[in-house]
């Protein structure tokens, strides 16, 4: 909390009025600067929302004035054209993230708590792929998926994100699960619990925070994907929101800027839901990932 003001030590002006202490001025300055920076950072978002309620003539004619009357109809029109993309993206992101969580939990646990021949070699195989940038695999992966007949199917997105996401997920899970005392598992085993029970009843509950982190990071990652669906998905019915946003205006013949901005706003809704539920986990994931690399 803020430091309590100690009146006795506050300097006074000659007339005896209390003058703000330098520390308080400095705090105010800090707050002012930060507020300015936040406003600047949010300008595009505010502008998006502001313009989403206007018609073309309102944008052209009265650029700075408030939308009057606000055209909420823009949202209806935008929703009609992009709901499919949003739904697809949620399904793909959800599917990929569940897969990543399942794979990471199992592999992470095994690498953390089990001893088996070749363990470190296999883990190294996993880590090595973390060093391989997406730019190397993008085109060959596209050709490979095409050969396997996976392009233009939801699997192209889900499999790619599951295969890529599990690497970092396993890495995070292993680190987190190594911190859990092994005695906990031993105790359960002595009580006669089967391996599966140990995993389901002890490992999973203890790993909820890290799994939530992985799930949310993966969902956000998949939701924001652009180039991969652009390459692999041809049917508009299966397309994801990122590509959809760049194409829907042409596809539906939309010339209203307001509708476009409304579509951008709608595409933010799933992210708002995710962040309001798990902002904490997302930040944890980012910082952890950053520090452990």
């Amino acid at each position, binding site marked *: 909390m803020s430091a309590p003001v100690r009146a006795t030590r506050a300097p006074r002006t000659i007339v005896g009025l209390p003058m703000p202490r330098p520390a308080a001025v400095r705090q105010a300055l800090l707050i002012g600067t930060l507020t300015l920076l936040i406003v*600047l950072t949010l300008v595009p978002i505010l502008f*998006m929302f502001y313009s989403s309620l206007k018609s073309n003539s309102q944008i052209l004619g009265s650029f700075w004035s408030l939308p009057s009357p606000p055209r909420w109809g823009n949202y209806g029109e935008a929703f009609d054209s992009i709901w499919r993309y949003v739904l697809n993206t949620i399904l793909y992101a959800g599917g990929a993230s569940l897969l990543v969580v399942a794979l990471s939990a199992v592999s992470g646990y*095994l690498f953390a708590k089990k001893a088996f021949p070749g363990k470190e070699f296999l883990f190294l195989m996993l880590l090595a792929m973390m060093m391989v940038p997406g730019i*190397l695999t*993008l085109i060959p*992966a596209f050709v490979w998926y095409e050969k396997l007949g996976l392009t233009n199917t939801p699997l192209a997105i889900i499999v790619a994100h599951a295969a890529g996401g*599990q690497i970092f997920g396993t890495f995070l899970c292993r680190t987190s699960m190594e911190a859990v005392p092994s005695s906990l598992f031993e105790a359960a085993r002595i009580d006669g619990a089967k391996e599966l029970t140990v995993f389901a009843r002890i490992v999973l509950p203890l790993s909820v925070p890290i799994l939530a982190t992985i799930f949310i990071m993966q969902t956000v990652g998949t939701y924001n994907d652009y180039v991969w669906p652009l390459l692999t998905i041809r049917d508009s019915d299966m397309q994801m929101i990122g590509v959809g946003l760049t194409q829907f205006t042409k596809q539906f013949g939309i010339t209203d800027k307001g509708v476009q901005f409304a579509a951008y706003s709608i*595409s933010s809704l799933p992210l708002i839901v995710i962040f309001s539920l798990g*902002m904490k986990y997302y930040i944890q994931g980012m910082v952890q990932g*950053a520090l452990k690399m």
Partner: protein
Amino acid sequence: MRKTWKLGWALIALCMLLAPARVWAQTAWNLEQGKSVTAMAMSPDGKLLAVASSDTHVYLFGADGKRIAAMKTGNVVTGVGFAGADRLLASSDDRNLYAFDLNGELLWKRDLKKRVEGVAPSADGTTAVVTIQNSSDLLLVDPADGSTLAKTSIGARAADVATAPGGGYIAVGGKDQNVYLLDGRGTLLFEAGMSGTIGSVAVSDEGRVAAGLTSSTVVLLDRDGSKLREIAVTDSVKDVDLTPDGETIGVADYAGHFYLISSAGKTIWQTQVPASATQLAFGAEGKTLYGGTENGGVYSYDVKNAIAGAQSEASKKRMMQAAAGAIALLLIAAALYLLKKYNRLSVLKRIWQAKWIYLSLSPAFILLIGFMYVPALSGLYHSLYEWNPGGRSTFVGLDNFRRILSDDYVGKGIVNLGILIVAGLLKAIVPPLFVAELIYHLKNKRLQYYFRTAFVTSMIVPAVALLLIWQNLYDPNIGLINRFLETVGLDGLVNSWLGDPKTAIWAVVFIGFPFVGILQLLVLYSGLIGIPDEWIEAAKMDGARLPRIIRSIHLPLLAGQFKFLIILTLIGVIQDFNAILIVTGGGPMDSTYVPALQMYYAATKFDELGYASALGVSMFFVILVITVVNMKFLRSSRE
């Protein structure tokens, strides 16, 4: 022990001996212009080969590859064939049918008023079938003087015609996906439907018909039209031929393969040449096979030797497999022996005991290998190829990489990348550090939390949407930036930011102002709160003021974070082309190209997958070097 090793070496040596046993493809000769071979025919006595080329000539070669004559027509030669022992006929896109003698002298030429699409004389010289553009008529022409013997219609346009060597049968591959067989006088014997587009037909003296389909299939039909065999090959069939007895089928496909296939449907022999195959022809009695390619290469194969070679190769392959199997067994035995010697046999037991662990890991590793390792290795491998998935890929060595050096778009891209990297590094460090310090110095913990959260909220808009919004902010007419400049009276600065090649790259750099990256902010902020308070207190006791504390305590202690952010930025900026693809597409002109974007375009717009892979591999190596240098640097700085 030593004995085992000796045995092992002997086996390896055996393999080495067996290994270099192939290469049947001998280029017999090349057409000088490197133009596509459009038709080929062998003289009935097997001494002369006529090769038609898209360079308007028909070339006559001796069986030894010596050129005897070159005959010029007015346009691309579409068909060629020997009629009897003294002349050859050639059809040309210049609407004429030509007859030449075997010294290359013109005997006669006949104007058919339309493009002549093909000619197929019978080997005995009694007749020749001619097909004409846009006509379903077949013209039977007398090779002696070019006069029309008969005219017959099959009711469909022909993609290819063939005449049996004895002149007894005429086979037509129709553009309606039907194969027609006619007798020597043009009477229809049967028509048979195919499952795909017909590229080529051939007919034997017994009336056996082979049809090559673009759907990578060869169909063998009997005289009565019944289907004898259907044989799958690698790629779209460009040409088929039959030996006179109809027992062997020769096939040329788009991927550059030549096949010999027995009438039982078994591939007797195959080879691949480094160019798309367009034509093939059997020599006399089917003893020699000639193949032509789209770049003017003509190959000759001794069929008997080829088959024998293929057989010996197959037996060598079997021996190799046996040897490999033996080596594998030996290695296992050696491994077991070593394990036993060092008393480690228990490892097998442990592997067996851990079987459930391996089973549980297998989905993860199937995905890892199948969808991460395979593409990565395929990229490395195919960067050395002119890569045509599903077709012929030609090894080009480092050509793709040499091309990168001379690619102007890459050159421009590297300059732009330099700008983006410098800007990216500044953006990744300075504003986030500034904001992190500001938040860190807030006394009110709750305010700290609010401000952090407020910055993080900027992530609620999808990345693509944010880019599109920025694109709109830059709009010359309705964009926020120009409107703002006009409002504050700076009309002179109004610009078409993204449309002007001079400002476009800077406009891209400016996207995301004021550049308070969330990750960067959080990393630096958590670095700051990780600094022990006592150190700061001690510095304050010594009379250090804020700038001094930042310079001497904060910055050095954040070195790890800076290094991390620098490497992350470098790797990120090199790879990222989303923003440019969405906002400018590389333009205007080439002003915002980056190498990654050029890679994307090479793959998607120009289908140059090998070149795209080479670009990907180059960027991978740059990133690898950065990572390794950074790791070394990190380590040495810690020591």
